[in-house]
């Protein structure tokens, strides 16, 4: 009996380890390729440890390819702005829908729920024409303003604020704080866990987005990283060492954020998904 359990457990471990290897190999292979010389890349040797370890690929993308740092900066500016604005505006909207009584509250909430179900492709073409009309193609605001709210997270914040203890707000009101004061000084600081989960998802969504920049941005100076990476591939079509180095630079910030906020991540997924 006991031995049987042992075998079962061993089997589970085998499954876990094998799948971990399957998950890690592409990343390790990309990482190792980013430190290889072009010579080794072309020769087709299959070693995970570079024969001749080199930083040249990284030097190349940052020094020779002047636009690469610019793409990195564009991505940071856009993702950071989108994240901050989303946190603020989604929370404000969610709070109003959860806590304030006003005419139009119910239809507005239903509209936000309905918007959740519209696939992005439907609004993609009209969005392009509207941005064109505004003169916002090829601009930061064209990338930031249309994505500075998100119906999913308005909904999530509403659910969060509905369960939020009312007493704290009432106490603050007695102390003479107005709505804005209550919201910014009492409610928002206490919503930190929900905000953290939201921040990660919004940041990643913006950082990794490919389609929106592809449509809105045509000036290479303004490219974000995914777009830059794609044009990079076109330019250095057989320089996989450069392409892999660029890919690694692109992935690093997300990994750092993930390691720091790991637990909010899981919470956020079960928040937006699960139930």
């Amino acid at each position, binding site marked *: 009996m006991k031995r049987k359990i042992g075998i*079962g*457990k061993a089997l*589970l*471990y085998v499954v*876990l380890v094998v799948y*971990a290897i*399957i*998950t*890690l190999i*592409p*990343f390790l*292979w*990309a990482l190792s*390729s980013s430190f290889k010389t072009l010579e080794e890349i072309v020769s087709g040797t*299959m070693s995970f440890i570079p024969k001749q370890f080199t930083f040249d690929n990284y030097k190349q993308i940052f020094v020779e390819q002047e636009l690469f740092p610019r793409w990195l900066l564009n991505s940071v500016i856009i993702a950071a702005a989108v994240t901050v604005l989303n946190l603020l505006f989604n929370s*404000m*909207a969610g709070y*109003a829908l959860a806590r*304030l*009584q*006003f005419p139009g509250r119910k239809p*507005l909430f239903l509209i936000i729920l309905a*918007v959740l*179900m*519209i*696939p*992005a*492709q*439907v*609004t*993609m*073409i*009209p*969005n*392009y024409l*509207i941005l064109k*009309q505004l003169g916002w193609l090829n601009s930061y605001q064209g990338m930031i*303003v*249309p994505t500075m*709210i998100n*119906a999913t997270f308005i909904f999530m914040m509403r659910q969060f604020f509905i369960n939020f203890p009312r007493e704290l707000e009432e106490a603050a009101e007695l102390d003479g704080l107005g*709505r804005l004061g209550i919201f910014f000084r009492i409610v928002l600081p206490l919503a930190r866990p929900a905000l953290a989960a939201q921040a990660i998802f919004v940041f990643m969504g913006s950082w*990794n987005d*490919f389609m929106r920049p592809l449509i809105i941005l045509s000036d290479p100076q303004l490219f974000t*990283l995914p777009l830059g*990476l*794609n044009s990079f*591939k076109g330019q250095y079509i057989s320089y*996989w060492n450069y*392409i*892999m180095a660029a890919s690694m630079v*692109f*992935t690093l910030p*997300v*990994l750092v954020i993930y390691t720091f906020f790991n637990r909010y991540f*899981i919470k956020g*997924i*079960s928040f937006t*998904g*699960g139930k």
Partner: protein
Amino acid sequence: MKQTLTKKMWRETGSAYLFLSPALFVLLLFIIGPIVFAVFLAFHKVQLLGTTSFEFVGLDNFARIADDTRAKIALWNTLKYVAIVVPCQTILALVLAATLNAGLKGEKFFRIVYFLPTLTSSAVLTLIFMWMYNQNGLINHVLEAVGLPTYNWLGDPDVALNAIMIMNIWSTAPYFMVIYLAALQDIPDSLYEAAELDGANAWQKFWHVTVPYLRPVTSFVVVMGLIGTFQLFDQSYIFSAGSGGPNNSTLTVVLLIYQYAFKTLGTMGYAAALAFALAIMILIATLLQRKLSKEESLY
């Protein structure tokens, strides 16, 4: 008394709309406005040269879909992709979650490792896989080493879409795994204890307790999977440098919409009509799934 009440009401309404104003602005200008605009576009021929002009063409754009060979190819590719990827990633996610939930040591470590692909951008993942799919690349070397046939993953029209499928099952399953993991924590131990008393082994417990209990979550995972897979774009675009090649084998509906909207002139209205067709397809698939899973739960 009454006056202060209305005054308070007014003040509350005022602050509510103040709080909602940024959201309303974006909602109207970039979401609801565009939806209405999209309906308009689908019935018009759009010229972008110089000043944008619109010519009413009635249902022509929709009628054109039926005559468009590439639209048929894109639809067929997309349906094939959805039909294979959704079940595979759902089952893989469930198996991984159940394994991770078995109370083994090091679960946290495995969970972090498994989640990596979900964090990484589609652009990076596609490039890494293109590098591995290279004719002289890692995957073919491994296949050769274990005596399996090798493929021209990127260039052979018969396998290019499969290459994207494999990559996406691998990268999306962990996301759904986390949803399953959260749901698994909620299953009461008493259910398993009862099953054990009835003499159920590990497999029977999984099949007769875990799987039925997770049915609502599975339904959610499948719906999210459907929505996601129908919208396949980034991977096809990067894989084929925007063309949908080789020989249209990676052409998806969204890639076709993109091409008609932004690469060929004068077909933006047609692209809008295609986008509507896609939205309706997603809606039907979602409703169908809902219906099927409801019937199932009657048993």
